């Protein structure tokens, strides 16, 4: 994925949960001119919130100075959100999805953020940091309904 598709000014935050509201308002503003329904927009805001919260919770090696960067691109076909971080690589696609019947029967707690992202977004891609790209990239994509 080329960087130049991200035509909206990126958001850069420190990895602290009080910044989640900034992430949500940033994503919401980016979608104001789209044809996405309010329900779809809310779902996308939720997915990005969950992705960033997960990063903040699990990136124990992350230092406060290690910012998270959020980028958005809106095209006629879809909306693409890329979340960049420099913590230890963690591919959310490798997390086994909970069987909700078992989850409720055993009254478990936690571990639902990635399940929500999967339910809301059409595709999830993950590119760990490499010698060419010194940051991890989580890429969430949602197709516009009219483009499906």
């Amino acid at each position, binding site marked *: 994925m080329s960087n130049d598709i991200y035509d909206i000014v990126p958001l850069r935050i420190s990895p602290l949960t009080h910044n*989640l*509201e900034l992430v949500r308002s940033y994503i919401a503003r980016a979608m104001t001119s789209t044809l996405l329904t309010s329900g779809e927009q809310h779902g996308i805001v939720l997915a990005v919130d969950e992705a960033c919260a997960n990063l903040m919770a699990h990136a124990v090696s992350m230092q406060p100075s290690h910012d998270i*960067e959020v980028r958005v691109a809106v095209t006629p076909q879809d909306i693409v959100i890329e979340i960049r971080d420099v913590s230890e690589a963690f591919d959310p696609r490798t997390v086994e999805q909970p069987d*909700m019947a078992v989850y409720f029967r055993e009254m478990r*707690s936690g571990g*639902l953020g990635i*399940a929500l992202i999967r339910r809301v977004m059409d595709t999830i891609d993950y590119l760990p940091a490499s010698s060419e790209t010194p940051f991890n990239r989580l890429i969430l994509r949602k197709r516009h309904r009219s483009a499906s």
Partner: protein
Amino acid sequence: MLRFITTTRTARVNTFTITHTHHDRAEIVHLHGYLDAHTASQFERDLRVIIEQGDAHVIVDFEHLDYISSAGLGVFMVFIEDIRKQGGDILLAAMRDNVFSVFDLLGFQVLFRIFPTVDEAMAALSNNA
């Protein structure tokens, strides 16, 4: 040169508050604002105090809750088993569409009863008496 929106702003807009009122058969917990990974720990702490000091039944009023993420849902899972073992329950009421959709995406209606209004949740408790 690439520009960034950075976090120089410090004032929180998406605050969360919790209040509660005692009724004959239940504690009614009113949620206001935004319940996310930042505010869920406050919610868990406050709800624990309310449950420990109050009635076995809890009705959660979502009318003024603007937003919830999985961290908020997780708080209900923390308490539901213990409160049911004690003969009580947690009933959820008056959710806005966007809040309900988060519960619905994960099928929380399997475990929790969700009512359109607090009055209907109260009536359900009375009918179970």
